[in-house]
């Protein structure tokens, strides 16, 4: 075989190899392209198909979690508020039982009676209280009445109601025909503040 023939033969081989490589490479590229496009389209189709379901599921799960979370926050706040009000309740019991020497319960009780009488705005008054306070008021009725009349500037007819009330302290006042009532008990005042001071206390404790 001549050198020229060999050279042509090598050239044919080289050209063939190059062509084969090109065909294989193009085919691989095309395969990758087709599969990639299919996967992307599949993802789009899938996302579109389940979009509503996923949104609903997400809203349901996250929504319910947020609701539970908010509920636990509210409960924790309620617990803290109750703790504060329970402590006040305990303090009021000590004050009414004259265990807390910083307070003079007799003076507090007189002020409560005076305020209630003023609110009722009548001369014939019925006073109700717990057993301990009824006993104190009964024993000191004339002194209390005199002091009230002096401070209010008019005569009063005070009647003590025999039936004791189950309260921490303070009084409940009625007019003679019981058409007017004023609850000036420590319990009632505290109860009223639970509503009116809620915002202020929450702000002070939780912000």
């Amino acid at each position, binding site marked *: *075989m*001549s050198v020229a*023939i060999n050279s*042509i*033969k090598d050239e*044919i*081989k080289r*050209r*063939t190899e190059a*062509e*084969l490589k090109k*065909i294989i490479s*193009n*085919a691989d590229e*095309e*395969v990758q392209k*087709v*599969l990639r496009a*299919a*996967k992307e*389209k*599949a*993802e789009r*189709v*899938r996302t579109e*198909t*389940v979009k509503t379901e*996923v949104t609903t*599921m997400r809203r349901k*799960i*996250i929504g319910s*979690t*947020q609701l*539970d*979370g*908010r509920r*636990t*926050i509210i409960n*924790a*706040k309620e*617990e*803290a508020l109750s703790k*504060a009000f329970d*402590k*006040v309740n305990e*303090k009021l019991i000590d*004050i009414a039982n004259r265990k807390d020497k910083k307070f003079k319960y007799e003076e*507090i009780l007189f*002020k*409560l009676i*005076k*305020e209630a009488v003023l609110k009722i705005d009548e001369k014939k008054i019925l006073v109700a209280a717990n057993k301990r306070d009824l006993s104190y008021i009964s024993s000191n009725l004339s002194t209390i009445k005199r002091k009230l009349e002096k401070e209010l500037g008019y005569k009063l007819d005070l009647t003590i109601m025999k039936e004791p009330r189950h309260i921490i302290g303070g009084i409940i006042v009625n007019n003679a025909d019981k058409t007017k009532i004023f609850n000036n008990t420590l319990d009632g*005042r*505290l109860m009223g*503040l639970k509503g009116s*001071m809620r915002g202020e*206390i929450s702000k*002070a*404790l*939780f912000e």
Partner: protein
Amino acid sequence: MSIELLIEEERKSIKQIEDVRTKAEKKIADSQKEAQKILDQAIKKEFIQKYLQKEEEKVNEEAKKVLNKYKKDVAKIKQIPSNKIQKMVDRILDEVLKI
């Protein structure tokens, strides 16, 4: 004789190229079939279920994070210093006894 050799070489080359081209076309055709399979699976019920399951797992993970945030807030509320509570107790007491 030499020319015949070259013709034979060329013939072999054409045959080789044709074979590889046929294989390549088959490979592409197979990939198109595979692509169709991928698309078909995308809308198959069990595949959707699987996908939804995965999404649910993701959402549950997110929900855990949301819950942890609330738990931290609750812990913070439970750790209110006693002096802060005492201050409020005194403030309420003042108000009860403000006659």
